[in-house]
C-alpha cells in the first residue's frame, strides 16, 4: 500500500507538485493522470525517495520514505520513464544485476529470472546483448527489472507509451494480473481508454494539484460527462483545449491513441489539447 500525504515540491517558481495526497491500496490499480508537466513523474520520484519532498509524507507498506528510504525502495518495483538499458548486458544479466540489490542470489534468483522471462515472453532475446533492442524489447527488460524481486508495490511511469498493439495488451493484462494477485499498482498514462479499463481509482493531477480522485465512473458522474476523456478535458482546462485538439466530446469511448486522429499531430501548447493524445 502506498500512502501519499500533502506532497510538495517546487522548482523555483514552478510548483511541480503542490500538495498531493492519495492512497493506493493493495489489490487495486491506481492511475495517475494529468497533462504534460502536471507533476506525475515528480510525484512518483518522491514516492521512490529519489527526490526529497519539501513537505508531506510518503508511506509504503508502513515505511516512511524520509526515515527509511531503503526499506521503501525494497518494497517497491519501479519502472522509470526513461527506457534505457545497458547495451552490453543481456536481459538475463540485467535481471541478475537488479535482483542482486534485493538480496536475491543463487538458484532462487535464477528461478525467478526464468519465471520473469517466461511471463514477459522474453525467451527469444533473453540471452542476447541489449545493443539495438527495439523499444518494446527494452520495455520488457525494464518491466522485468521492476518485477524481479516480486515487490508488493509496483510503480510504472507511462508503461505502454511507444509500444505496439500486442505489447500494449500484454502490459495491460500484466497490470491487471498483478493487482488481482493482491499487488498495489500505481501507474501514469496519457491514454484515457487504458485508464478507464484498468484503473480501480484515478487521481487526476493538474498543475501539481489533485483535481479529482475516484473510480472512472465517479469521475464521469462528477463532471456530468459520458466518457473519461471528456471528464479529464473538463478538469484539465475545459472546452477551449478540447476544441483545439480536434476531438469533439460526442461518444469518445474509442479513444486509444492509435485510433485517435490526433496522434501524429505536433504537440500543442494548450494543456487540454494534449489530453488523450499520445506522448510528446
Amino acid at each position: 500500500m502506498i500512502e501519499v500525504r500533502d506532497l510538495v515540491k517546487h522548482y523555483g517558481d514552478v510548483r511541480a507538485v503542490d500538495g498531493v495526497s492519495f492512497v493506493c491500496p493493495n489489490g487495486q490499480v491506481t492511475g495517475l493522470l494529468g497533462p504534460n508537466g502536471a507533476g506525475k513523474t515528480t510525484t512518483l520520484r518522491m514516492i521512490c525517495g529519489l527526490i526529497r519532498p519539501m513537505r508531506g509524507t510518503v508511506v509504503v507498506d508502513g515505511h516512511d520514505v524520509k526515515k527509511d528510504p531503503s526499506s521503501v525502495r525494497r518494497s517497491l518495483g519501479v519502472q522509470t520513464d526513461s527506457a534505457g538499458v545497458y547495451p552490453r548486458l543481456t536481459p538475463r544479466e540485467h535481471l541478475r544485476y537488479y535482483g542482486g540489490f534485493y538480496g536475491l542470489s543463487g538458484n532462487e534468483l535464477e528461478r525467478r529470472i526464468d519465471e520473469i522471462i517466461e511471463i514477459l515472453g522474453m525467451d527469444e532475446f533473453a540471452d542476447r546483448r541489449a545493443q539495438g533492442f527495439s523499444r518494446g524489447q527494452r520495455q520488457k527488460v525494464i518491466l522485468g527489472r521492476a518485477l524481479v524481486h516480486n515487490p508488493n508495490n509496483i510503480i510504472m511511469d507511462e508503461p505502454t507509451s511507444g509500444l505496439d498493439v500486442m505489447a500494449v495488451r500484454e502490459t495491460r493484462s500484466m497490470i491487471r494480473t498483478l493487482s488481482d494477485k493482491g499487488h498495489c499498482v500505481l501507474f501514469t498514462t496519457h491514454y484515457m481508454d487504458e485508464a478507464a479499463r484498468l484503473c480501480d481509482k484515478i487521481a487526476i493531477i493538474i498543475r501539481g494539484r489533485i483535481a479529482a480522485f475516484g473510480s472512472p465512473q465517479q469521475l464521469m458522474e462528477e463532471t456530468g460527462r459520458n466518457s473519461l476523456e471528456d471528464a479529464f478535458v473538463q478538469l484539465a482546462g475545459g472546452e477551449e483545449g478540447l476544441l483545439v485538439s480536434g476531438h469533439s466530446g460526442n461518444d469518445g469511448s474509442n479513444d486509444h491513441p492509435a485510433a485517435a486522429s490526433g496522434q501524429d499531430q505536433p504537440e500543442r501548447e494548450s494543456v487540454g489539447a494534449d489530453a488523450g493524445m499520445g506522448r510528446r
Partner: protein
Amino acid sequence: MWQDVANIWRKEMVTTVRDRKGMTQAILVPLIIAVFYASFTPLLNKAMFERSQKPLVIPAVGVEYADPKLLDTMHEFGITLEEYGGDLEHAVERGDKESGLVFEPGFSENLADEQPAQVRLITNSTAGGVFGGAFSDSRLRLAVSTFNQKVAAERVVAYGVDPSALLPVVLETEDVATPEQEGALWASFYLPILVAVVLAQSGLFVAIDVTAGEKERGTLDALLVTPASDWAILLGKMGAVFVTGIIPLFLSLTAFWVVSNLMPSVAAVEQGALPLFVLWGSLLIGIPMALVMSVAQMIASVRARTFRDAQSAASPLVFAMMIPGFIAAFAPPKALWPCFIPLYGPFAALSRMTQAGHLQWDSIGLATLGSLVAAAVLTAVAARLFDRERLLYSS
C-alpha cells in the same frame, strides 16, 4: 552494503571488458607509450655509438702539406682526408660538405721547426640538422690533441726532460655508480612521465561510462530506485574505475621493463640492465596514486550529463598528473618529506629510488600515506556530490 558494492563493481567490470573499442584503446595506448619510452634512449644511444664508430672522410685542401704522422694519427681515429678540388669554404657554407680542413703550405716545415703549425677547420654548425650529420667535431679534436701530446712528449724527451713534466695535474675519475643505479638512470627520467601519462588517461573512460554514461543511456533512474545506498553505488563504481586504471599501469610498466632489458644488448652500448626493483617500485607507488586518480575522475565526471561534458571536465586532471610527473623527472628530489605531497610524492619516491638503486620503504610508505589521505579527502567530496537527488538533477 558490501554485497551491493560487489554487485555494482562486477557489472561495471563486465560491461567495461565487453567494450571492445574502449578496452583496446585503454590497453594499447599505454603499451605503445611504454615501448616507445623504453626503446627511445637505447636506440638513440645506439645511433650515436654507431656514428662514432663509422669511418669519417673529411674533404681537405692542401693535404700534400700535411705531416704524414698527423695523418697516421687521424687514421687511428678512423679519419681519412680526401683532397678537395674546388672552393671548400663555399661548399661547406652551401651544405654540400659538412666540414673541411685547409692545410697551408709550410705546415710540415713549421712542425719540424717547432713552430705553431696551423690547420683550418671549416664547419657549418647547422649542417646535418638538430642531431648533427656524419661529421664528428670531437673525434677530430681528440685526434689532434693526441697527436699534440705525442709530439710534445717526443720533443721534451729530446731535451732530456721527463715527459711527465708536461702533466702537472692528473685527474683520476672513479665512477662508483652501482650497476643498479646505472641501469635505473634512464628509468628515473622516463618512468615518472610514463606513470603520469598512463594514469591520467587509463581509468577515465570507465569513470565517464559509469557516471555520465548512465545518464546518457537513461539507466540512472533504474539504479537509483534500488535499495543500494549512495555509498555502495559510489564505491562499486569507483572500484571498477580503480581496477581498470591499474591494469594498464601494470601492463605498461611490465612492457617498459621487458623492452628496456631487450634493448641494451641490441645497442651494444654500455648501459646496465633495468633492475627489477624499478618495476616493483613504480607499481607500489602507482597503485595508491591510481586510487587518487580514480576518485578524481569520478568527481570530474559525476555531474556531467554527457560523455563530452565529462571529457572536458576531466581534462585538467591530465595536467594535474603530468606536471608533477615532469617536475620529478627533470628535478629529482633529494629529501624524503616531498614524498608525502599528494600527486607529486609518488613521483618523488620513484625518483629517489631510481637514484638510490634500490627500493626504499620509507619513500614508498610516505608516498602511499599521502595518496591515501588525498584519496580519503576526495572520496568525501565525491560522496557529497554523489547524492541521489543531485545526480538526478544533473541528468
